[in-house]
């Protein structure tokens, strides 16, 4: 077994943020300690009101080599953006 602590990804919701954002990673022996370490490493300048941690190995990521088939087909489909509607003035800001 490795003597290194496992790696954790850290997500923080800021003072006015609506969602948690990925801020970086760190090492910790377990989830509780990961939260504490995240508090000390990533929120010491009053950045956050909530912390999530998840062990990095539990994140499934898309593969960079699949980039073409994954993302290129959506490039030329401008009609998928709702930009062709006239919005009545009474609606106000959307």
């Amino acid at each position: 077994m490795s003597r290194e602590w496992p790696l954790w990804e850290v997500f923080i919701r800021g003072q006015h943020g609506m969602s948690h954002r990925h801020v970086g990673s760190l090492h910790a022996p377990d989830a509780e300690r990961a939260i504490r370490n995240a508090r000390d490493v990533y929120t010491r300048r009053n950045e956050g009101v909530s912390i999530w941690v998840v062990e990095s190995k539990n994140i499934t990521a898309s593969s960079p080599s699949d980039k073409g088939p994954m993302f290129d087909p959506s490039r030329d489909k401008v009609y998928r953006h709702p930009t062709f509607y006239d919005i009545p003035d009474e609606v106000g800001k959307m």
Partner: protein
Amino acid sequence: MATDNALFEFLLRQGDNSLVLGHRLSEWCGMGPALEEDIALANTALDLIGQTRLWLSYAGEVEGAGRSEDDLAYLRDAYDFRNALLLEVPNEDFGRTILREFFFDAFQLPWLHALIDSADERVAEIAAKSAKEASYHLERSAETVIALGDGTDESNAKMTAALAYLWPFAGELMVDDEVDNAIAEAGVAPLPSTIKPAWNATINATFKEALLTRPDSDFAHAGGRNGFRHTEHLGHMLAQMQVLQRSHPGAAW
């Protein structure tokens, strides 16, 4: 000891405890066993130095001799310091550093909570602000004592050695003297000895999980809180801590 400067003495004890422990913890900056622990220790040190500023600036006002928080921190000699001996002994290793901090945190949290009811408004304010920090410090140090005590054979052996060394220094925090009596009479703070049951409960619960055996002795070194007999280590520590102000008096940012 004249009771009219009991408040000054009391404030020096609060400020010097956090100053000396804060400085000892700051010695780990850049040397921690892991980046995360390094930053956590530096954060704790900064919390303690921040608390020191509040205590010592108030001490300077109470003394009324025009001394600032910086004058008190950087221009006093060892025999004028009023910190408990526990806080000035060298770090030695990570285990001893953490165990020392844990002994202090286990006292400091209930102590600050008691000071929130102080008859002295400034003391109550400083205590309320510091208690939140102390609460996190205790969580973290207790958890780390458990992780190291109930870790590997090597970490347990180091914690056992640290315990043997530090135990005789821990009791001084909770031994009352005439300053404490005067301060308690004035309603500024309870007697330190009243914290003992809470301290014992924290120590016993944590030791149980940490697989550490509480020594069967209540012997306590004395001489730090009254400045009567500091260890030889404080002078060495102050030499480093004060060198800048001693060599360049009045140097500022």
